[in-house]
């Protein structure tokens, strides 16, 4: 599973179609047929929800990358990651409104404020995530695999309650600063700036991450540690520091996601991190955990599925069932294709 954190390993190997694979294909074909039906029923609504889904997917991608980075290097599902994301939303609201005086209707003055908030939040969350690793996961390096997983759940609950103690049990509101004017409006399909801004900020962050992992020395150290810790140590890589750095980067991504989510959705609550974190984790598994492009692909897929489910007009289960659908996907993927869409099949079978 950990095989390579960076290389976009497309499943090019030929595999004989199996019974299980046939069921999976049938399922996918059914979904596609359903979507075509939706498209013919109401094209404008279909494209509208698709665009919303891409925005959802962009935020999920940032969170999912945090899961996938950490899993790639430690084989640990970092449950606390979703809650770091929640904390990031709270940080973003505090920084932007209390420090920089962000409020509605400032025109282009919001650009430097948003960027300063983004950077500050990323730094804060990176530091928090690295601290979590240092305190909660590092002492358990030699322990059985499940020990750090259990600790991660504990940390997740602690962070959730830190958010609760800090901002209280109600929704925290952020000023709605992103413009709602249309980028384009074609045939009843409106695309608004606040959606586009999220995607526009996400893409450079993703590119920077890809560059970091694939082109820099630190990235090479991360990939080496993910492949084989002992061999990496023999080669003179400081494994503990590399792992700390990975958590720092993952936390910074959660920080970026939290900032964008808080300013886009304009509300944050202490308990939403866990849910969104699990959805993002599903995205990471869907794409092939440990695989960076896979996490983005999975996140966009999950974002689309969520938007289609909640927004399409014709016989969709609706938002009451979103979580069930997402977790069903998680379960089905883990059962039928544990290596995910882009991952490589490992001897353990996932």
């Amino acid at each position, binding site marked *: 599973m950990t095989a390579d954190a960076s290389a976009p390993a497309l499943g090019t190997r030929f595999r004989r179609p199996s019974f299980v694979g046939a069921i999976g294909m049938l399922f996918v074909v059914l979904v596609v047929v359903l979507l075509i039906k939706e498209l013919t029923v109401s094209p404008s609504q279909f494209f509208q929800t698709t665009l919303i889904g891409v925005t959802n997917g962009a935020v999920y991608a940032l969170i999912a990358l945090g899961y996938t980075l950490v899993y790639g290097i430690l084989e640990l599902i970092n449950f606390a990651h979703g809650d770091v994301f929640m904390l990031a939303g709270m940080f973003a609201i505090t920084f932007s409104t209390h420090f920089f005086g962000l409020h509605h209707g400032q025109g282009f003055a919001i650009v430097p404020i948003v960027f300063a908030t983004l950077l500050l939040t990323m730094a804060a969350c990176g530091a928090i995530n690295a601290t979590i690793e240092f305190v909660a996961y590092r002492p358990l390096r030699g322990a059985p695999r499940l020990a750090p997983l259990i600790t991660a759940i504990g940390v997740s609950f602690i962070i959730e309650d830190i958010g609760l103690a800090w901002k209280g049990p109600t929704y925290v509101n952020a000023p709605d600063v992103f413009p709602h004017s249309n980028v384009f409006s074609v045939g009843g399909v409106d695309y608004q700036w606040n959606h586009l801004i999220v995607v526009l900020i996400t893409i450079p962050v993703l590119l920077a991450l890809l560059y970091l992992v694939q082109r820099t020395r630190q990235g090479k150290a991360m990939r080496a540690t993910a492949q084989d810790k002992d061999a990496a140590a023999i080669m003179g890589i*400081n494994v503990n520091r590399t792992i700390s750095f990975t958590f720092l980067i993952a936390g910074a991504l959660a920080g970026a996601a939290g900032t964008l989510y808080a300013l886009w959705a304009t509300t944050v609550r202490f308990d939403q991190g866990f849910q969104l974190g699990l959805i993002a984790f599903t995205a990471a598994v869907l794409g092939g955990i440990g695989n960076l492009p896979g996490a983005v692909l999975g996140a966009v897929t999950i974002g689309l599925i969520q938007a289609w489910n909640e927004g399409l007009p014709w016989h969709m289960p609706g938002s009451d069932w979103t979580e069930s659908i997402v977790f069903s996907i998680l379960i089905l993927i883990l059962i039928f294709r544990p290596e995910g869409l882009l991952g490589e099949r490992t001897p353990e079978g996932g």
Partner: protein
Amino acid sequence: MSEHPEGTHVGTQGESPAEIIGLRNRLRAQWRAQSMETRIGASLGATIALAILLFFVDHALCVAVLTISALYWMRRLPPLPWRIAAQAVLVALFLIFGPRSFAAVLAIGFALFWVPERRRTWVMPLTALVLAALYPFYQDKMFTIPVFGVWPDVFTAVIMLVFVMMAVGLNIVVGYAGLLDLGYVAFYATGAYTAAWFASEQFAHTTWHLGAVGIDPKLPGIHITVWPLLLLAGIITAVFGILIGLPTLRLRGDYLAIVTLGFGEILPQVARNGDSLGGFNLTNGPNGITPLDSPGFGHGISKATGGFLPANFTACCNAKVLGHVIQSTDVYFWFAILLVIITIFCSLRLQYSRLGRAWIAIREDETAAAAMGIPLMRTKTWAYASGAFFGGVAGAYYAVFKSATFPGDFFFNISVFILCMVILGGMGNLTGVVAGAAFLAYLDQEGLANTGAWINTNIHIGSHHPNIDVPLYASGIYGLIILIVMLFRPEGLIPSRRRAAELHEGVHDEPLYEAQHAGAEA
């Protein structure tokens, strides 16, 4: 960041927890190097200083600290007559001044202390059982515990017992077989809803009665009397566990955890949205199913046993025994104890059975176990089914006790809460799991609120009282418990020896990079 050459920054990361543990060991060695007199003097001085300090916070807490230190030193007083005298003095002191109930507790404790070692294996559980069974009679006469307040009432005790049952069930999955189940609440919910379906008016279009007590025999809906109902709930939940287990159990540990978590999230949503599944009202949605039929034995059995077995729990008794009017809650309590005993008995028998040994083998090394001829899938599925069975029975009894089932009762928090019980007590050790479950369930029901009240009244800076709503932070407190236990005592408070060795020595070789790190620092 990327410009630094790797490997040159070894040991610049400050104190790691490993170093803190090293420091602890060094301090401990230094402490042991002191002379006996110094150590005793320092300890006594520290205790008395602490007691004086606490005297200003809460008198009872001061007495508690002194008592505990007295008990501690009593174990170190060598000759027998001295020890007996000291124990007698302590009991007498509490008889004269303090709460008499505490004197009784002390007396029982000291009496147990004199039981020979080899008899304790059965005397201790028997005493615990008798004391537990008599609990409704002396609960209102008990002393107030410092910080935690009064003893839990019988209603809380029933819930504690239900959680004990669930924790023992989860212990089979997590403790024995080593499969991390993060969706145990799904089994709990299945049990509760099974009980609700078959003992209420939920399915009003059919009318089918099987020995139901205390209701009109023409009442619509399915009504099964409680004892077959509990069994049915257990069996249905076990089947459900097998259905979940079959496709998922071949996954590796952490993936299995995630899949169970997924089921644990889906099931409450199904319960919440289940009021119109294709037009069929399965779960009555967020309103839940209520009321459930009252449990009982019916008039026939009740008369045959001379009224010893009550005909109907909720309309029960009011007989006065030993100066205590027996309430229906007491009856629920005694039958919960009965169920717990059955659960513990089954769990113990399973542990030492061929199946139980196979579970432990799988937990310790799956590959080796498979090589020894243990059928992995079947063994794991049995672990799941057994754990699910007890979870289902516990859920059903809880639903019957509350006479209701709501989808809001089955959040992920509950799964982690039960996991926390198993971890705190000691994975794989029944005594530990039972104690951990009882304590945490008590904290959840009453303890946290009492502790919060104590903190808010007794701890203050000047006239400024903190106003913390402690129960609000319950899940964070459980998280903290999990974290602390996993970091510092992964085998739990009352560990099983085998599991402790596994967790401390690890089942893997020492990783090379740890050695490198240590070597660079030395």
